[in-house]
């Protein structure tokens, strides 16, 4: 699929606003007969890492850009304003008890296939057919159903099952009370259940469409949701075309068609934007801001998002087994210099692995380890570190500014006597591989809802990646993770969270936070569209006229 992106009609602010305001009042045939809405083209680095649109499989930053146009959750995070949870496909919810949450579904919501959304669809979306509850990992392999000798079917692939288990670790069942009421019942108390439901894995999809699909793979490439756009064409590794769904419950979308085009090179994305072939260009590095801003017709929007960049430690490395060495790492990082030199000061240095929207759970007096080379040297002397090499498995450009950040880090570490050796890798599995000796690596952690369980326990607790791949574990931290997950006393949870930060960032470092991530999108200046505090992109009417 080519890059064209030229709107089918001239796209001016006034006509856009007019169309947006008039759209709800127009009968459908009027929209169909004289559709003056623009076609919007978005140049992205990658559309989907897994070549599917099923969020249980596509758990990536790049996948976040598209799913929100296709499907919706019951409760959603307000990434554009105050980061609170707000009604989406559920209009209201109430706690029955600490284990049970009852939600009232929105009326008149239709799927892209015309079916009206019911409680059965919600039960399906969180049920065994989609999430694979009860399956063994051997049974959950039908992504590869076309391998000779294996059956085809709609059972999910193993990693979808793994993601579901990690996201909803204690979900027991979803009860259908009536066509508009559902109850989520947990095996254990969970104060963060509303937040978990707001995660993209909880998007509500059509049961009928799932049952009609010939295979899981077919379905996952054309999921039928309730979002303002439906999948018109998905060409893996090339393009994704979404068409306006005029029966959308929130009103007909202001855009006739969204075209996500895969343009891997940054320079090519910028050229597509500047030449008028694309209206948006994603994943802009900070050093391109000035160049784009010189164009009167374009601008760069966005800023910090709910994601922190980290350096992660492998505790099983002979040198890193000593927490004093890891602590030395944390004190030998000049975070402010990285932020100033590579991000133009746009990326804040946060208060450790916590986010401002944690509200009452936030420890405002917590901070990342201070930059103190002398303290780092003292810790290394105390640890008896003799300069043995410590590998740093590195990707060239998965994260924006990844390579220059690594170079700054390594020089800082060398200055205090840490012999860190960069080893370039091609992809994350090679970075995480148990073959050879791991040392330090890059990572980022997102908070998908406003509670520490969304990040600290999810990423570093017993079900988290570090623990699961044998990189780091701490028994006290593991016990506290359970307290944080299941605790119902806010004061106790807050104290527990504090202790977990002390363990994972000071006493027995699992990681150290570098800075908050920044997501920059270049766009046409005349398009009144706001970037959220997330990778999610919203092309509904509410986010179109600013």
């Amino acid at each position, binding site marked *: *699929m*080519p*890059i064209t992106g030229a709107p089918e009609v001239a796209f001016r602010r006034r006509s856009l606003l007019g169309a947006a305001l008039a759209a709800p009042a127009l009968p459908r045939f009027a929209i169909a007969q004289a559709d003056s809405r623009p076609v919007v083209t978005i140049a992205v680095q990658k559309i989907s890492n897994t070549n599917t649109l099923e969020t249980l499989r596509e758990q990536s930053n790049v996948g976040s850009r598209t799913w929100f146009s296709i499907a919706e959750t019951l409760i959603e995070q307000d990434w554009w304003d105050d980061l609170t949870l707000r009604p989406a496909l559920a209009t209201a919810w109430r706690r029955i008890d600490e284990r049970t949450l009852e939600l009232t579904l929105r009326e008149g919501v239709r799927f892209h296939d015309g079916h009206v959304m019911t409680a059965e669809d919600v039960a399906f979306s969180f049920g065994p057919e989609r999430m694979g509850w009860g399956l063994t990992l051997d049974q*959950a392999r039908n992504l590869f159903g076309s391998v000779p000798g294996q059956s085809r079917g709609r059972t999910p692939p193993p990693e979808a099952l793994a993601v579901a288990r990690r996201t909803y670790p204690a979900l027991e069942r979803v009860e259908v009370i009536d066509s508009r009421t559902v109850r989520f019942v947990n095996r254990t108390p969970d104060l963060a259940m509303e937040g978990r439901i707001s995660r993209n894995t909880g998007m509500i999809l059509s049961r009928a469409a799932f049952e009609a699909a010939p295979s899981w793979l077919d379905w996952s490439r054309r999921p039928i949701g309730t979002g303002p756009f439906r999948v018109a064409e998905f060409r893996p*590794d090339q393009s994704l075309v979404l068409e306006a769904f005029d029966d959308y419950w929130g009103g007909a979308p202001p855009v006739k068609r969204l075209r996500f085009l895969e343009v891997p*090179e940054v320079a*090519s994305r910028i050229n597509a934007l*500047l030449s008028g072939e694309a209206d948006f260009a994603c994943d802009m590095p900070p050093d391109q801001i000035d160049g784009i801003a010189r164009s009167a017709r374009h601008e760069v929007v966005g800023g910090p998002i709910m994601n922190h960049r980290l350096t992660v430690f492998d505790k099983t490395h002979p040198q890193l087994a000593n927490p004093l060495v890891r602590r030395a790492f944390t004190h030998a990082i000049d975070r402010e210099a990285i932020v100033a030199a590579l991000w133009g000061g746009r990326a804040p240095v946060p208060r450790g692995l916590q986010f401002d929207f944690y509200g009452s759970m936030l420890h405002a007096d917590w901070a990342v380890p201070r930059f103190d080379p002398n303290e780092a040297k003292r810790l290394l002397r105390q640890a008896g570190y003799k300069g043995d090499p410590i590998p740093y498995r590195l990707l060239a450009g998965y994260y924006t500014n990844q390579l220059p950040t690594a170079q700054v880090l390594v020089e800082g570490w060398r200055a205090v006597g840490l012999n860190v050796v960069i080893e370039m890798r091609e992809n*994350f599995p090679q970075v995480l591989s148990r073959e050879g000796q791991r040392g330090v690596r890059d990572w980022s952690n997102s908070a998908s809802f406003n509670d520490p369980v969304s990040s600290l326990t999810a990423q570093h607790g017993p079900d988290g*990646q570090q623990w699961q791949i044998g990189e780091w574990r701490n028994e006290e931290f593991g016990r506290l993770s359970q307290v944080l997950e299941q605790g119902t006393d806010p004061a106790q949870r807050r104290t527990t969270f504090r202790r977990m930060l002390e363990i994972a960032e000071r006493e027995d470092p699992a990681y150290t936070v570098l800075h908050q991530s920044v997501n920059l999108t270049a766009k046409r200046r005349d398009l009144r569209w706001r970037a959220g505090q997330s990778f999610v992109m919203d092309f509904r009417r509410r986010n179109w006229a600013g």
Partner: protein
Amino acid sequence: MLRFLATRLLRAAVTVVLVVTFAFVVLRLSGDPAQIIMGADAPPEAVEAFRRAWGLDDPIWMQYLRYFGAIIGGDLGRSMRDGRDAIALVAERIPATLALTIPALLIKLCIGIPAGITAALHRNSPIDRAVMVLAVAGFTVPSFVLGLLLVLVFAVQLGWLPSGGQESWRHAVLPILTLGIGGAAVLARFTRSAMLEVLGQPYIRTASAKGVPWRAVVWGHALPNAAIPTVTIIGFMVGSLIAGAVVVESVFSWPGVGRLLVVAVANRDLAVVQCVLLLVAGTMVTANLVVDLLYGALDPRLRSQARGA
């Protein structure tokens, strides 16, 4: 002649086997497809299940024998990313690549050969220097730099042509030019060198001394003899029709075989990578075979050597 052909065919078959074997070993030793395709978050049991499903848990020699046996049986395997036939995935990308590389080859031939001949016939003149300056510039600028420069001028500044994608013939212009300019420069250099060498030969001097018109000397004696090294280069260019646009396809977001190869290598989608490499090796070997046969047609001495042997 038959023996000549048989020797070349045998050599071609050995080359293809070596390429396939090398690719098989390197790809399997440089990354685990199961871990890459399943993702970093996949639990170890899931990765194991994937390995079992695809036979990746077998010893590498067993995988190799199975793979090789399948190739002989005409089965090039399936993509591990979506289960489709690798050959079907590759085949659907070939037209897009050929849509760039064939016109680019014509540009190379139409510009490179006349430019090289002209430069040789005007040796040390301003024309020669001008042609060589352009040729050196053409083949020393990397294709991704040239591509971006062309985009900046013709797409961003002038707005005449699209900067990337594959929707109409206009989208193909800049990638074709990018591929064509570099190749034409290489061909111009080789043609000039070959012509200069031939023009210095005694038989050219003899023909001129006998009063043969200069035009007839060039057409009848110089060009056929200079064609041999030039045909070798053209053979390489024809051989790279399938996979000679990897960088250009990335710069211009052109969904051809090159981009498929990049994505497949990054994901260790073994069957697809091997299918592309097999195709590339096959094309290159065939082109070389044709060049070898052309040598015989162009140079009677080689024909007589082959007969003598």
